[in-house]
């Protein structure tokens, strides 16, 4: 295996509507599973934190009866912990209650204890103790636009957080509201949606209100991000000041997923869906599309994927790992999970008939 040592292996975490499955592999082809963990609770968010010399798996758990919570495991799911008072808890003065944790995002290596979370109601949270306790980001909570943000079908949430590894720049995407940017580490936020269409609104080019589904940063080009919208695939090269369409060449401009390569410039993956009327892979043919030139062109990738697939792939039900070549993983609402050890050129089915897949995360870890 290129670039791997025998001391490394892979962890795959699959959050579903009815629990969490964890898998480990030495080669990204044969996987050993445990689970379901948290049976009958949905797992809409997962963060795998490989900093600090350990592998910490953090999960956003939501039980229909008993509510949401964040749990973490430092032993690959053998045991789980949750703080007594809850990792995410709205301050009393907000009058708000946590509904669902949509995103758990470990920050860069340079900020080893920092973990971000995005939640419903629309809110961003920051932990400095490795994800055990989070603090509400007041800048976004008190934003004057808040009263005009709306709820998409899945709820009103901050679902994407992208933090610059060196500067204090943070991008957040919310449905519905669009992209917001902070240049001061989250103290203040401005809407940054110029060029992104909101065709479903009276003014199709508003300052905010866009239904962005996922954003991801180009790992090699500073200021470049990609966005999959509710119709529309976009790129910015100026830190979200302006967005331009890169949808040409895709079979559909709708979808939920946006992934970027861990190192290589211009490489991103989407999973197009036909919409609004259908919300299925175009013609029932499931395929991932990859660009290697920042959206100038797209390559259809379907080796190993089934034909006749009528389930969608949700925004966080896809992930890349950091190996070389990068692994690509995704799951469907039909409960199938696919993995590629070659950047999407070929996929293998690693799980089937699970409950709806809500979140997939993969990581290269020491040992396991």
């Amino acid at each position, binding site marked *: 295996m290129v670039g791997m040592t025998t001391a490394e292996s892979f962890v795959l975490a699959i959050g579903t509507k009815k629990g969490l499955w964890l898998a480990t592999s030495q080669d990204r082809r044969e996987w050993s599973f445990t689970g379901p963990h948290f049976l009958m609770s949905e797992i809409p968010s997962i963060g795998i934190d490989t900093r600090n010399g350990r592998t910490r798996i953090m999960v956003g758990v939501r039980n229909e*009866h008993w*509510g949401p*919570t964040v749990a973490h495991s430092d032993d690959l799911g053998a045991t789980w912990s949750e703080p*007594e*008072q809850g990792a995410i808890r709205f301050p009393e003065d907000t*009058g708000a*209650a946590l509904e669902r944790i949509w995103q758990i995002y470990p920050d860069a290596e340079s900020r080893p204890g920092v973990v971000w979370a995005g939640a419903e109601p629309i809110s961003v949270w920051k932990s400095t103790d490795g994800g055990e306790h989070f603090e509400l980001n007041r800048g976004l909570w008190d934003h004057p636009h808040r009263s005009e943000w709306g709820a998409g079908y899945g709820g009103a949430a901050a679902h994407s957080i992208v933090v610059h590894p060196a500067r204090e720049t943070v991008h957040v995407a919310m449905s519905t509201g669009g992209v917001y940017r902070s240049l001061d580490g989250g103290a203040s936020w401005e809407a940054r949606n110029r060029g992104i269409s909101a065709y479903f609104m009276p003014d199709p080019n508003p300052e905010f209100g866009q239904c962005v589904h996922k954003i991801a940063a180009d790992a090699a080009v500073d200021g470049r991000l990609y966005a999959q919208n509710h119709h529309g695939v976009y790129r910015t090269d100026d830190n979200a000041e302006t967005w331009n369409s890169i949808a040409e060449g895709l079979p559909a401009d709708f979808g939920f997923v946006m992934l970027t390569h861990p190192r290589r410039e211009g490489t991103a993956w989407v999973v197009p869906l036909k919409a609004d009327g259908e919300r299925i892979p175009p013609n029932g043919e499931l395929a991932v599309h990859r660009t290697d030139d920042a959206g100038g062109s797209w390559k259809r990738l379907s080796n190993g994927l089934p034909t006749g697939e009528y389930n969608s792939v949700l925004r966080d039900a896809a992930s890349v790992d950091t190996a070389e070549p990068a692994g690509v993983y995704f799951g469907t609402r039909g409960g199938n999970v696919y993995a590629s050890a070659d950047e999407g050129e070929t996929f293998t089915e690693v799980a089937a008939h699970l409950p709806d897949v809500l979140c997939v995360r993969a990581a290269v870890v020491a040992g396991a």
Partner: protein
Amino acid sequence: MAMAGDRGQAVPTPGITVVLPSILQPLAGGQSILTAPADRPVTVAELLDALTADYAVLARRLRDETGALRRFVNIYVDGDEVRRLQGLETEVSPGQEVLVIQSVAGG
């Protein structure tokens, strides 16, 4: 069962018992019944405050951080669901039984 005022016996502290569903019992140290000392009527909110003071995770499973009862958690006082009474302000008297039961919901 010893009742307050029984002659010849020690007078037990009057209390209100709360019966937990099995799924929540691990969060209460394995207990199926929690008893809050009470010599006067208290509200369900006060009762939950007292009973979950030492079981913070249990408290979060029943109520959110605003204090609201979670949507699919039902609390019965002598057979009546508190939402049909005065919600968490429903008063419970010593000797009454309180049941915590999750809704039959989900798919």
